[in-house]
């Protein structure tokens, strides 16, 4: 007699915990052939707001952590993902409708991307910050600082590599985030949440919502306590309205569009969520 498998309940990841949607709603996630994979939480406006509160609460601690510490935490994420490699391969294959042979390269690239960003945490300030030789007797230094709470609409197609590619640069720089996972391919994102919860990433630093992007995104775009938004996974017909709403509190915006996730990511996303602070002090005796 074959054993009956123990299935996983896919929930939200908010403030370090795994709640169901406060709305009590869920939706069926299916594979390419339309076969049922799991029920995912159908996140609501309230879930989004709770997630912003959690991200804001986590910001002082995470942004105040040393860059070395953040680097170790991000590297730890890669380590724990590696241990769940087979699970991710299965989930990515199912989510993206690719074969079990095609999936490993995407999962491996996602893990390696964490390693790449882990190394950036204590180097980015040296690359994009600098001393300024002002024409006067002043010490003057410009350093990058994290922007704050970033809303991220994860790419709709690349369920894991794309997700990691938009998420890692936010937290590598010291910001915290609320991520809306790919609407039709959300399951690898929930599993990534489980990895984050067991990788020394403090609760609230990353919050992951599943559900309808078009339903949740407007609340995040208009939210006054969100400092920036990555519109990567926004639908073309909604992206303009979201960008417009984001202007209400001068959010930093990255516009919609999925680049080639396999390519070298460059510094664009990492520096998009950093501010430059310049400090002056007179020199004299």
């Amino acid at each position, binding site marked *: 007699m074959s054993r009956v498998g123990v299935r996983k309940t896919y929930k939200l990841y908010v403030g370090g915990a795994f709640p169901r949607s406060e709305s009590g709603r869920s939706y069926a996630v299916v594979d390419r052939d339309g076969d049922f994979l799991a029920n995912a939480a159908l996140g609501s406006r309230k879930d989004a707001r709770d997630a912003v509160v959690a991200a804001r609460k986590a910001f002082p601690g995470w942004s105040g952590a040393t860059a070395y510490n953040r680097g170790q935490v991000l590297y730890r994420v890669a380590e724990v993902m590696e241990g769940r490699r087979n699970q991710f391969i299965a989930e990515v294959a199912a989510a993206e409708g690719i074969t079990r042979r095609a999936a490993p390269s995407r999962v491996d690239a996602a893990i390696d991307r964490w390693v790449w960003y882990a190394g950036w945490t204590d180097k980015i300030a040296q690359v994009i910050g600098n001393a*300024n030789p*002002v024409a006067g007797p002043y010490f003057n230094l*410009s350093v990058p600082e994290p922007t704050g709470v970033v809303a991220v609409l994860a790419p709709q197609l690349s369920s894991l590599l794309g997700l990691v590619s938009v998420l890692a640069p936010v937290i590598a720089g010291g910001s915290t985030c609320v991520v809306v996972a790919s609407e039709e391919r959300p399951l690898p994102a929930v599993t990534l949440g489980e990895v984050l919860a067991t990788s020394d990433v403090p609760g609230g630093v990353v919050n992951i919502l599943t559900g309808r992007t078009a339903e949740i995104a407007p609340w995040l775009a208009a939210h006054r306590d969100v*400092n920036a938004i990555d519109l990567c996974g926004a639908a073309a017909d909604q992206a303009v309205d979201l960008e417009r709403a*984001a202007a209400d509190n*001068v959010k930093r915006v990255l516009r919609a569009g999925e680049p080639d996730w396999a390519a070298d990511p460059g510094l664009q996303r990492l520096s998009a969520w950093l501010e430059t*602070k310049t400090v*002056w002090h007179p020199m004299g005796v």
Partner: protein
Amino acid sequence: MPFDYAPAPESRSVVDIKASYGLFIGGEFTDATDGTPFKTISPSSEEVLAEVSEAGPSDVDRAVKAARQAFTGVWSRLGPAERGKYLYRIARIVQERARELAVLESLDNGKPIRESRDVDVPTAAAHFFYYAGWADKLDYAGLGSAPRPLGVAGQIIPWNFPLLMLAWKIAPALATGNTVVLKPAETTPLTALLFAEICQQADLPPGVVNIITGAGDTGQALVEHPDVDKIAFTGSTEVGKAIARTIAGTRKKVTLELGGKAANIVFDDAPIDQAVEGIVNGIFFNQGHVCCAGSRLLVQESVYDEVLDSLRRRLRTLRLGDPLDKNTDIGAINSAAQLARIRELSDIGEAEGAQRWSPPCELPEHGFWFPPTLFTGVSQSSRIAQEEIFGPVLSVLTFRTPDEAVAKANNTPYGLSAGVWTEKGSLILWMASRLRAGVVWANTFNRFDPTSPFGGYKESGFGREGGRQGLAGYVKDRRDV
């Protein structure tokens, strides 16, 4: 016996103001095809200085076309070193004509000649000189290899530092290979129009710099123009938000340098005399028409009386009057509209329960004037503690602990600048790391330099002007290429 100052006015004869000005498009002054001409006045006397053209939509279109043609035909094909040499030329001509520019700036803007002569104009020249050198070194700027220009930049600048803001906009745009259409503020167009002559003297290829005058409608037409690749704006947060909404869904890039409500924080161990000078410079420099002005003074309770006594004593010595007088500390408010705004918010401050104080101060009969003003007993929620007044009005609050100072300083939607006064180095660095502001001046205030990036956090905008960071807003990201 008290000594009085004899008048020491700078001569106006160095400047030749024309009766009327056209638009500077494609290297020449041309008449506007639509739009109604308007007058620019001297805010210290209300004397009409000149009549200026208003650029309508078809004029904006002509200017953008000229800039596009110059971009594709000339400027983007020119060697980077040659581009840089044009900027060096411009820097030199600004230096050569410095006195003329300073007098014209003080006439049109109302700021003291001491400031236009010693700050605005030399810093503008320095800005061109600094970015001139970047033109052929962009490969080393950390922007990726061979960073490419965006194309045509539409630039909109405010009235508080007309020439200096022009330099902040045009110098990095040209150094990176863009061409520009710049709109100065409607109350202060004259130094930009003189700058157009400087471009002619420098033999800058026609269309690389276009100057169009007008008010909000002209700016809006520029922002909406489909062939503009980049908008760079300095001005109010309200207009900045409108610009961000307008360009939503386009490919246009944008940088915004918006309002501020900076906290100037004085700890009990600060050198009080120096701090008082910094407070005065922080809020009364340029009549407080400064987005990064230290408009909220946060004083540690234990030195409150000492600081306030000293501050009041110092304010009694400030000289308000003729902007062209070399002994003037405080000039005219830039416009009747701005004066009305300052009066309104000051009245609200009083109505909300704060105590208002100004030194004895005789205001000239004509022109727009507002005395240096202190508000004490200001609550955190008061509008004069929350809103940008953009005038010589200081709101004084107190604190007990560094944590409280940080919380109060950050309790605003803005995040442009902040000041910290203390002798304790570790406290300075602790404060500097916690203040959510783009520029932190420690034991100094209102310092500017071409090499030093300037710009805001939160609703004070995004993007940086000045320094290596100031190049980034004018080159393509990898994903734009």
